[in-house]
């Protein structure tokens, strides 16, 4: 609890200075909204010609796009500092983090606040909401609770993968988070139903880098569509697994940290 409170305190420290750059926020927000609009135009154009994609309607694929956008938005808004890890390592700027009594990973991720995440959270939620509104889900309290749990797990998975892939920079000498960025791009594959991909890609997105648990599996379970929909119930487990792996990779990486100026 203290950890969470302190996290918001650290994050909030940047908030005030961020407000100084109002135009920055507007440009970023505008750009992220534009990106989602382009996605929706693309989906609409595609589904104007085909009613379903492997059994998935426009609205269900829109939900997957929305889930990826939402998870990404939470990652930017609350954990954007991760993307500066490579730079911090390269410049030896973790020194002070390492002598403070607060988890280093949390100090890193709270060191920046990606205000543009806000627009992704909003557009992502709207896309999920629109998708759900056009679905025939029979809402019981148990289903609502489960949906919330799946949503939280989905976000945890995205953030954990961000952390783990960024922590790979402890091994690479690159000053930019290119590896993590590339994996983040791979994550965009999860915006489409997993069933359209060849087996190797299914394995990558379902197991190695379980991006499919951010969008496809939980939505398949919720909408009761597609093959092996029960896999969606494993989403919370996948979240715990990802968080554990991310923490482990980060701890291992930290042991390799060499500071700078040698």
């Amino acid at each position, binding site marked *: 609890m203290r950890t969470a409170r302190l996290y918001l305190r650290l994050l909030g420290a940047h908030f005030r200075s961020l407000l100084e*750059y109002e*135009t*920055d926020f507007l*440009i*970023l927000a*505008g*750009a*992220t909204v*534009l*990106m989602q*609009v*382009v996605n929706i*135009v*693309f989906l609409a*154009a*595609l589904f*104007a*010609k*085909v009613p379903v*994609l*492997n059994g998935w309607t426009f609205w269900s694929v829109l939900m997957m796009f929305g889930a990826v956008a939402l998870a990404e938005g939470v990652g930017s808004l609350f954990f954007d500092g991760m993307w500066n890890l490579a730079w911090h390592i390269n410049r030896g700027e973790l020194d002070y983090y390492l002598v403070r009594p607060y988890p280093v990973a949390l100090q890193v991720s709270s060191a920046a606040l990606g205000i*543009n995440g806000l627009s992704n959270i909003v557009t992502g939620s709207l896309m999920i909401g629109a998708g759900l509104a056009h679905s025939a889900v029979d809402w019981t309290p148990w289903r609502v609770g489960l949906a919330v749990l799946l949503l939280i797990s989905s976000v945890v998975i995205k953030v954990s993968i961000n952390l783990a892939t960024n922590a790979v920079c402890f091994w*690479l000498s*690159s000053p*930019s988070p*290119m*590896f993590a*960025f*590339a994996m983040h*791009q*791979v994550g*965009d*594959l999860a*915006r*489409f139903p997993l069933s*359209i*991909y*060849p087996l190797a*890609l299914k394995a990558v997105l379902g197991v190695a880098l379980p991006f499919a648990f951010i969008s496809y599996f939980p939505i398949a379970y919720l909408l009761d569509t597609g093959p092996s929909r029960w896999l969606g119930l494993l989403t919370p487990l996948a979240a715990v697994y990802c968080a554990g792996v991310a923490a482990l990779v980060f701890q291992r990486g930290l042991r390799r940290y060499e500071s700078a100026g040698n």
Partner: protein
Amino acid sequence: MRSYRALARAAARAALAYRLSLLLGMGAVLVQLVALLAVWRVVLAQSPINGFTWPQMRAYLLVAFAAGIVVSILGDFRMAYRILDGDVALDLVKPVDYQKARFAESLGGLWIELALIGVVVGVTLAFTGGVDLPAGAGAALFVASMLLLVPLKFLIVYVSTLACFWTQNFMGVQWARLAVVNLLSGALIPLVYLPHWLATAAQWSPFAGLTSTPALIFLGRVDAGEGLLLVAVQLGWVLVLWFGARLVWRAALRRLTVNGG
């Protein structure tokens, strides 16, 4: 000329030094290729849509990929940060033309990009089957179109990066540019799939020359006359943007000198 060649070599060297970044930076384009191949394979499995068969769409996507990779080692980030930090003032005292210097840098990485395209296209063809190559006039037009794509893409990125003189925020401008280019160039979906008014607007915009024009010529979906017109539009935009960029640059310099960097 020698100084521009040196800049081009330095750019290639910088790209190689961070070879991992280089490979991964192209990931976005590659991921889009993979996703779209998977989507269209399913969609076009039964029957062609809008006249596109699966082998045609595959060829379209491969050309789109190649067009997306060319001139992507740009150093536009570096350029942006030099503008934002005011270090651009140091570039001004060098005895080279700023715009030509940046263009030379983007050419420096071209051979690396071509090698990458060769590998990815080769692997894709090996897995999904071959494509029909254009012949005669079509082939000549395709080559011309791909050659024009190089300055065209450079100029679009260059002009949008110059926006840093006004906005202080490079990331947002770049994202917006990527989104617009992705849609209006036909890289995300062939322009004929878009609503008619949007497709027409895109067709005459400078963005169509970034994917749609070379891809349609490659597929033989336009005859020689139409193809020539499309390439002429490309050329027109290159000229307009080359001299337009100079105007933007002059305005930017005024801003720089007025604000003192």
